[in-house]
């Protein structure tokens, strides 16, 4: 275990001034020294209680918001250095914290927020005082997100919100939500949607955790019953929230397509195969090597998009190919892990496997949402077909 709190280090004023590999080394060394064990290689998403200490260390170091400008408390990193930071966190096995305030709300407020909104929300988002969840999907608006129905009626200086949001990741831990709600009905359903900030302690909000197939509660449904929200919590212009939400795509999608998660599943597969003595089985080796090369080749494609970021070029819609390949590969890896575990694949939770302890089913379960969330793979294929391949709609 690392000591309870890292010392303050004299940081160079400008991270961008360091040569890239020096920067990487500095990041790596610090993470190795200060990352608490409890956030490494978690079975699922980290809850806030697990994240708090690590968050606080990063915050005190000034590293909690790599992409934010330095004048707002961020590191002011260029996209490629943000990727280096992510890579080093992945390398060390750091789980994902409830970071949507950093990755989503911050950039949106910086681009579309008012001065008042920034000074109210940015500091407490950095410190972890405000933990954000995303209120986009609804029971009848999943793949077809633009058909959302949760309404926000403007009454004087307040919006009155009614409806419900679903698949809200870790809403039970969140203090705030960024919400898409319908403020009017336009000719196109993408019109008339507004982007609002909501304090989760406002009366009329109910959070119901949703138990998932693995028995965990990562997602919630959030109900709004005449919830009053100050007009000042509107971000951007009324009825124009759709374009705000869309503006976050691109760089985000590169993260979804990273080989990190399939690589974790692959490590589990190797653990199982080693314990079961399968590396001497030529038939297993053939299957294993095929997946291994699919994973390495995903990395090759990923690196190419990273290079694009490195050169400062914007990412196109083609980046979705990483998400499709990576999430489906992770499922294929998890299936081979089940076969490799033989009888042990029937057992829940940690299983004693020739000396080591492995949760054989964890990759199976955790590979399922990837093909559904973040724009299902069906939607991604639709997008690639029409926008990249130019097939008729």
């Amino acid at each position: 275990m690392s000591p309870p709190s890292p010392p303050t280090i004299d940081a160079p004023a400008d991270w961008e001034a360091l040569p890239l590999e020096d920067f990487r080394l500095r990041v790596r060394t610090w993470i190795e020294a200060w990352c608490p064990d409890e956030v490494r290689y978690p079975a699922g998403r980290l809850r806030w209680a697990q994240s708090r200490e690590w968050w606080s260390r990063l915050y005190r170091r000034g590293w909690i918001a790599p992409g934010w400008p330095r004048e707002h408390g961020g590191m002011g990193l260029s996209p490629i250095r943000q990727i280096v930071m992510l890579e080093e966190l992945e390398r060390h096995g750091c789980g994902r914290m409830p970071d949507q305030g950093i990755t989503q709300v911050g950039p949106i407020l910086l681009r579309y927020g008012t001065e008042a909104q920034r000074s109210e929300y940015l500091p407490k988002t950095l410190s972890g005082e405000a933990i954000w969840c995303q209120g986009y999907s609804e029971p009848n608006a999943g793949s077809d997100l633009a058909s959302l129905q949760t309404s926000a009626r403007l009454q004087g200086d307040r919006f009155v919100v009614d409806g419900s949001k679903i698949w809200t990741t870790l809403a039970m831990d969140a203090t705030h939500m960024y919400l898409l709600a319908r403020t009017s009905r336009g000719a196109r359903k993408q019109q008339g949607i507004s982007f609002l900030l909501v304090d989760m302690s406002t009366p009329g909000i109910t959070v119901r955790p949703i138990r998932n197939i693995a028995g965990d509660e990562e997602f919630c449904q959030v109900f709004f019953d005449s919830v009053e929200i100050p007009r000042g919590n509107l971000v951007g212009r009324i009825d124009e929230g759709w374009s705000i939400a869309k503006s976050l795509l691109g760089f985000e999608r590169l993260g979804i397509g990273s080989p990190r998660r399939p690589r974790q599943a692959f490590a589990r597969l190797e653990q199982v195969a080693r314990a079961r003595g399968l590396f001497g089985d030529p038939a297993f080796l053939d299957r294993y090597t095929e997946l291994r090369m699919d994973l390495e080749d995903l990395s090759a494609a990923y690196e190419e998009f990273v290079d694009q970021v490195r050169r400062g070029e914007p990412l196109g819609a083609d980046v979705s190919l990483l998400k499709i390949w990576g999430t489906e590969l992770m499922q294929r890896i998890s299936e081979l892990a089940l076969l490799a575990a033989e009888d042990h694949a029937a057992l829940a939770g940690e299983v004693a496997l020739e000396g080591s302890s492995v949760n054989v089913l964890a990759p199976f379960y955790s590979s399922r949402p990837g093909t559904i969330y973040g724009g299902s793979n069906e939607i991604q294929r639709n997008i690639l077909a029409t926008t990249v391949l130019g097939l008729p709609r």
Partner: protein
Amino acid sequence: MTEPSGVDPDEGCALVARSAADYLARSDPLARARRWRDRTPGYDREAWRELASLGWPALLIPEADGGLGLGLDSMVAVVRAGAAASLPEPLTEVLAAAQALVHAPTSATRTGLLSRIVAGECIVALAVQDEAGPIDLQRIGTVAVSAGQGAWRVTGRKRFVAGGVGADGYVVHAHADHQPVLFWVPADCPGLEVLAHAQADGRFMADLVFADLVLPPDHLLASGEPALAAAWAAIDTALIGSAAELLGLSQRALDLTLDYLRTRTQFDRPIGAFQALQHRAVDLYIHQRIGESVMRQLLDALRHDPSAELRTRGASRVKARAARSARQITREAIQLHGAIGFTDDCEVGMHVRRALVLGAWLGSELEHRRRYARLAPPIVD
């Protein structure tokens, strides 16, 4: 296989299937499965007595032993329907273990156990595995030595005993005097430790640890070739039963998925109107149909040639196929349901988890394809 003396087998099968449908429709086994999951024993002992009153544990027990003397068709019909309804009680497990008794030589222990099974008073489980991987009854993991006066002292361990938690006793494969033997080991026998392992489906498997456990002479059920034959009869029955369960649950998962595709709308259309989803649904349907055909062909063949050879080969074939189909169907059922398919509230998850367990029990599809390749003659002359 047992042959009924009085009632026409097809008739018997149809009767049993109807009564199963009635029972399952009125007793909400899905709710019971949810209530009991992750709580030992994972099922409802009261409900088991009701199943016994319907004759289910007696299906394959000869009439001479107080059973119904029906064939595998009946078992397949009942456990298939049970799996579709998420019935949590260990029916396949008990039917299989009872087959070991049916195939054992006549003895007072055998007679007594069979009548208690028929009455629903005894839940029995089969303990034939020493470790994960292919089942090998030549492997010597559990050993019995003489304890004087015909009694036996047993040491060792059996693993992956499905239905083993909460059972009243076990049919245990062991070795004595360099011979394979089957013992009856009551659950309350001193020296027996039952370790519970939670399954993915909320039920439990047991490891049995025998620490100088002493068994009276009459607990030896069979030895030598008859013991092997009885054990394989039980294992094959378990495989065919698990294949039937897989077919039942995958049909149900498919039906739920098709309903969802017909009714869920996105982009102002039912999502089942999207061609890419239609084609994937068709592929699931084909998998299901192929699985059903293999099972039907096996049952037909066994009616004409009830040999152990055909049964063993067919058991691997149908288990491999049903596991393959159920794997594809349950995984795609999640995807085609979207986020809702990943929630615990959605019935699909029950079938996904049960398919994980049945897929692994007594050998994966891969293992059974390999076994089939060893057992079956070449296809082309």
